[in-house]
């Protein structure tokens, strides 16, 4: 129900902007851009769901993104080519870089988690400190300079520089639809095999239909956004070929969006189907009960923050690759966008409640609002005023809704 409400809000938002902008909002081009702009915040919002569900908070994700981005920028422009003598655009550069970045993010996150879990310093304080520390560690590492250009393979993980192409996108879309329907069906079969009541067939079929339309619709949209002719010409020139006259090539699914989908699906499975996920929600619902049930809640905290750090590093890959360089202000204010996305997506700050898909929808709604207003020509200060108000309003609506339902 709540999911439908959020999708409804998103659709109304999109249609509204589309009318105001004379049909410029719902174009393949804009939706493509909207999705690649959302990815970085959405990936971190997935991790933030777990943090907030366990009654913690992480104010340092933007700063952590900056530090991991700086680590990776320095690795691929200084450490590997110059100090280790691998030269520019070595085929192994991107992999080593990302590995080092992910490792750095995970370790920093685990360190935060250790301070929260074992030293029992409140997460608010640990990550407020972390916010200042890591933002400025990034500054120090790069001397405040913009670092670029980045490795050409690394750039594929950003926006327009790396997409699947139309054929692979359709294949992926069909595959994803098949997996989703299989997951629904096998869940139903497991329930039925124990003789539990199952939802009516029409309800599940409708759900399957909505999922299929959403996936294939998105593939259709990103496939119909074609690479600009000039750019296509340059790509052919780079390969020493000439472009056939009148050729149209669609972008297809961006690799960064693919990463988000992988993260979202994995974390949803983690949340619902693993002990780790079960313990996260149990700890959020009643930390004492979780502890008394024999769950090691301290170690759990370390793991959750380590996961958050890992996801910050993933976001750093996407964000710096999209911008094609590491700039000193990368990820500024992202912590607030990430928290807002999770909260708009239905994650309760009191703990125990939250979903991954909700957080992603929350991120999408915020980004749609922001870029929609920019297209309409709303002044920058008003954009932020509106986004801030929407955040408060969304949480209020959620509170009213939950009261009506009689849940806490």
């Amino acid at each position: 129900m709540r999911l439908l409400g959020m999708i409804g809000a998103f659709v109304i938002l999109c249609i509204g902007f589309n009318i105001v902008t004379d049909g410029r909002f719902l174009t393949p081009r804009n939706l493509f851009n909207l999705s690649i702009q959302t990815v970085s915040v959405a990936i971190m919002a997935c991790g933030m769901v777990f943090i907030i569900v366990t009654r913690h908070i992480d104010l340092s994700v933007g700063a952590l993104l900056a530090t991991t981005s700086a680590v990776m920028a320095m690795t691929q422009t200084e450490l590997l080519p110059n100090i280790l003598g691998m030269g520019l655009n070595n085929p192994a550069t991107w992999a080593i870089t990302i590995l080092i970045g992910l490792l750095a993010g995970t370790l920093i996150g685990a360190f935060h988690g250790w301070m929260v879990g074992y030293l029992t310093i409140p997460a608010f304080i640990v990550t407020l400190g972390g916010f200042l520390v890591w933002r400025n560690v990034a500054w120090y590492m790069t001397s405040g300079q913009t670092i670029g250009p980045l490795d050409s393979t690394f750039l594929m993980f950003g926006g327009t520089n790396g997409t699947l192409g139309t054929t692979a996108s359709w294949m992926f879309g069909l595959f994803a639809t098949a997996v989703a329907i299989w997951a629904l069906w096998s869940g139903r079969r497991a329930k039925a095999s124990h003789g539990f009541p199952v939802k009516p067939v029409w309800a599940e079929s409708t759900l399957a239909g909505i999922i299929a339309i959403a996936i294939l619709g998105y593939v259709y949209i990103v496939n119909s956004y074609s690479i600009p002719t000039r750019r296509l010409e340059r790509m052919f020139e780079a390969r020493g070929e000439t472009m056939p006259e009148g050729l149209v090539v669609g972008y297809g699914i961006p690799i960064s969006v693919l990463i988000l989908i992988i993260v979202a699906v994995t974390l949803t499975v983690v949340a619902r189907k693993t002990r780790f996920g079960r313990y996260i929600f149990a700890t959020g619902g009643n930390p004492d009960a979780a502890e008394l049930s024999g769950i090691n809640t301290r170690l759990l905290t370390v793991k959750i923050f380590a996961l958050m750090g890992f996801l910050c590093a993933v976001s750093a890959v996407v964000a710096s690759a999209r911008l094609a360089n590491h700039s000193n202000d990368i990820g500024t204010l992202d912590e607030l966008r990430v928290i807002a996305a999770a909260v708009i997506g239905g994650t309760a700050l009191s703990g125990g409640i939250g979903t991954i898909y909700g957080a992603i929808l929350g991120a999408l709604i915020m980004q749609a609002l922001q870029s929609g207003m920019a297209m309409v020509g709303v002044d920058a200060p008003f954009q932020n005023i509106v986004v801030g108000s929407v955040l408060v309003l969304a949480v209020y609506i959620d509170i009213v809704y939950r009261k009506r339902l009689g849940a806490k």
Partner: protein
Amino acid sequence: MQDQETQQTSSGRGSGVPPLVEMRDISISFGGIKAVDHVSVDLYPGEVVGLLGHNGAGKSTLIKVLSGAYQMDHGEILIDGKSVEITNPRDARANNIETIYQTLALADNLDATSNLFLGREMVTPMGLVNDAAMEAECRKIMAQLNPNFQKFNDPVSALSGGQRQSVAIARAVYFNARILIMDEPTAALGPHETQMVADLIHQLKAQGIGIFLIDHDVHAVMDLCDRASVMKNGKLVGTVDIADVTDDDLLSMIILGKQPGQKSE
């Protein structure tokens, strides 16, 4: 002191077997205040021992040492006559000690099944939690304990006090506890549900499970227990056989901290 009694109860006490649990000379203090002061209690298989005392007498604290929630400063715990280390709730579970807490210790946002299996989920060969199989087990055990229980897919926050208590009890029973700690199990329940818990205690006792029952209510203890240990201000006033004492004897132990006259040493 008490063990030289020749009177034989339904339990294994007096037959020469070591006690199921023996807590020897336990002390624990918080910030200079002795919450539990050199207290010794024991429990035999198939026996219900009541722990009585005012609020703050130290009975809950004492029992939390056994369930692993607190660590004692001094003393020793023996299970089947062997000394064991219990430093956290996981250790307690490993020794088949299950606790039903006053505050129920359920995660409100999860359903009955998830709470029943919390910390001990059944997993599929792929390592994912097997919700369907767990729900089936949950339905089985709930059918025994509380046949009216139907809300398997709601979070436990939506359940009544009695239903929540059934979930908490199911958790202890399902995992074959040998030693069960019940901290005011009937505090939040209506008369019908209280009777249900009482029946259950008799049933568990018959299976040879040892039960520590913490309660304020002298009558409940008189009805359900074989022996009672009374605490006051962190100290053990004494342990008596229920068959030998009256309500008033127990009350004077609780209020005045005096042993009944016939039990003087």
